[in-house]
């Protein structure tokens, strides 16, 4: 079909997921539909870590899609997620990222909610001196804050607006769970800090980036020069049965030239750190894998690169930009040396990361290109045209799998 207003196709190219139509990165109508179908639909969105709300009354303000929500810990020690929008007149009443309260009070007319989002009180409900007041049949119980379904797995908290969403474990699938549980292994998590960046690209480009081991050996001079991730190292690319989630896992190699490094024009094999403490990894997980980057549909990247661990939460902010919230963490069992090691290795990641800054810069270039040529297509053919798991990193199959699923969900 051709959209007469925009003079471009509105469906997926017949070649399948080895072609990506560029209009999907900037089209406002499609974006609005993505919010409804994906972010507010039957998906589990990451909202935070249980350690962020350690005590009764602790809260965290966050977003699912563009919708503001609040995560709290209530009197019973249970985690709740409800909408951050007063049931009265629609005020986004909670403005702090984190805090601790006994109840939430909307500043406008002081409607008051408990830690579960139930409406506790409405000022002047019975009127003043016999005048005004809410109608006699007004019931607090009918005007609470809409509550989301919540699921927690080993300290990571997910929520969904849709009651039909399948159970979390089933949603992740048997292929993803071992990698998820590898980092979230049940130990109590300790928050090390946050960084937030506003990336001027469509949210899907962020996912593509993590599902793309092809670029990692070429764009990231720092990464390849220190052997943190390279195409000539063993790489496993695994997807769930739907193609929406994926993980890339690899083993740190040596800092040496091989026949594969000839194509890595930017590799600096004589690169030496003046202070080696930045890259002083200690093996802490079972097995040989030293880096595992997992993408969980629709808003989470789980990062384990050496000893730097983080969740990266995607918050779409219109078709052309998204916020990426990095929450770095360690474990309660970490000693001081490990805590500092994680803080040092965080130099690799985030808005100023030796590795990650290349990505957010290139995503800006990516958006600048795709938004101006909406009628054209991207070519996703590295490693073939299929969507299978691979035991190497010379592939874009996880991107194809992602778009195969995306096109199906969005009915394109």
């Amino acid at each position, binding site marked *: 079909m051709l959209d007469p207003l925009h003079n471009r196709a509105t469906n997926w190219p017949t070649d399948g997921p080895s072609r990506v139509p560029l209009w999907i990165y900037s089209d406002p109508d499609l974006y609005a539909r993505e919010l409804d179908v994906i972010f507010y639909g039957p998906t589990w969105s990451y909202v935070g870590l249980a350690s962020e709300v350690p005590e009764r009354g602790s809260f965290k303000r966050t977003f699912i899609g563009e919708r503001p929500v609040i995560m709290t810990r209530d009197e019973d020690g249970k985690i709740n997620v409800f909408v951050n929008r007063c049931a009265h007149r629609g005020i986004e009443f909670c403005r702090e990222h984190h805090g601790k309260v006994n109840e939430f009070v909307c500043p406008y007319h002081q409607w008051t909610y408990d830690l579960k989002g139930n409406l506790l009180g409405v000022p002047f409900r019975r009127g003043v001196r016999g005048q005004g007041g809410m109608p006699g049949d007004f019931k607090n119980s009918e005007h609470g804050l809409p509550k989301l379904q919540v699921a927690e797995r080993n300290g990571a908290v997910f929520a969904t607006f849709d009651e039909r969403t399948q159970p979390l474990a089933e949603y992740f699938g048997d292929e993803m769970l071992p990698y998820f549980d590898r980092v979230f292994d049940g130990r109590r998590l300790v928050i*090390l*800090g946050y960084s937030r960046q506003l990336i001027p690209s469509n949210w899907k480009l962020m996912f593509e980036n993590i599902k793309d081991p092809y670029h990692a050996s070429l*764009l990231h*001079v720092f990464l390849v020069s220190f052997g943190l991730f390279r195409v000539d190292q063993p790489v496993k690319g695994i997807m769930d049965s739907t193609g929406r989630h994926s993980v890339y896992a690899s083993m740190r190699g040596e800092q040496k030239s091989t026949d594969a490094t000839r194509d890595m024009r930017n590799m600096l094999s004589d690169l030496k750190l003046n202070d080696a403490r930045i890259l002083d990894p200690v093996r802490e997980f079972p097995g040989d894998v030293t880096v595992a980057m997992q993408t969980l549909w629709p808003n989470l990247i789980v990062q384990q690169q050496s000893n730097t661990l983080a969740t990266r939460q995607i918050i779409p902010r219109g078709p052309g930009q998204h916020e990426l919230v990095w929450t770095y963490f360690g474990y309660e069992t970490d000693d001081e040396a490990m805590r500092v090691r994680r803080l*040092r290795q965080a*130099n690799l990641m985030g808005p100023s990361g030796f590795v990650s800054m290349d990505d957010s810069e290139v995503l800006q270039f990516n958006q600048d290109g795709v938004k101006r040529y909406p009628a054209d297509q991207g070519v996703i053919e590295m490693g073939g045209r299929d969507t299978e798991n691979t035991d190497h990193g010379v592939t874009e199959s996880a991107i194809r799998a992602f778009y195969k699923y995306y096109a199906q969900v969005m009915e394109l």
Partner: protein
Amino acid sequence: MSTSSPTQTLPSADRRDDSVLLRARIDAWLADYVDCLDGKRIDDWPDFFNEECFYTIVPKENDQLGLELGLIRCESRAMLKDRAYAIKKTAMYGPRDIRHFFTGLVVREAAPDLIRAESNFLVVETQNDMLPRVFAVGRSYDEITPVGDSFRFKTRRCVYTSNLIPNTLIIPI
């Protein structure tokens, strides 16, 4: 209308001149620091620090929560050199012009071997096809060592107020 002499309420001329002079000297040194960053002489940047030093850029959020994590964390001049090298040789980023504005320098404490100072920073970024934008604003908390007739940072902690970084912070503050 009151005509009382303003000199009566001022501190003694000597002490005041000393502190004005110290502030002016630090201010001039900070101008050299800005000149180094804005002039894209990132190789020279580590020389503004002691060999044993600590440099970090943290969002206000982490600062308030008592969380150490920073966008950049350098625990020695050697680590600053690695950062400078990465900016010059390994990082990929688009062309940009960065201007730093440091204002409101105050000296909190001035011992012979250590000065504690604070100032505001404003960073303005200009990229191609874009108007200049306020990139970051915040306050720096510095411990400065007098070295001969100049200074070096012992610690420099830049706290930015926005929490949100417009894409990437390449050049340090």
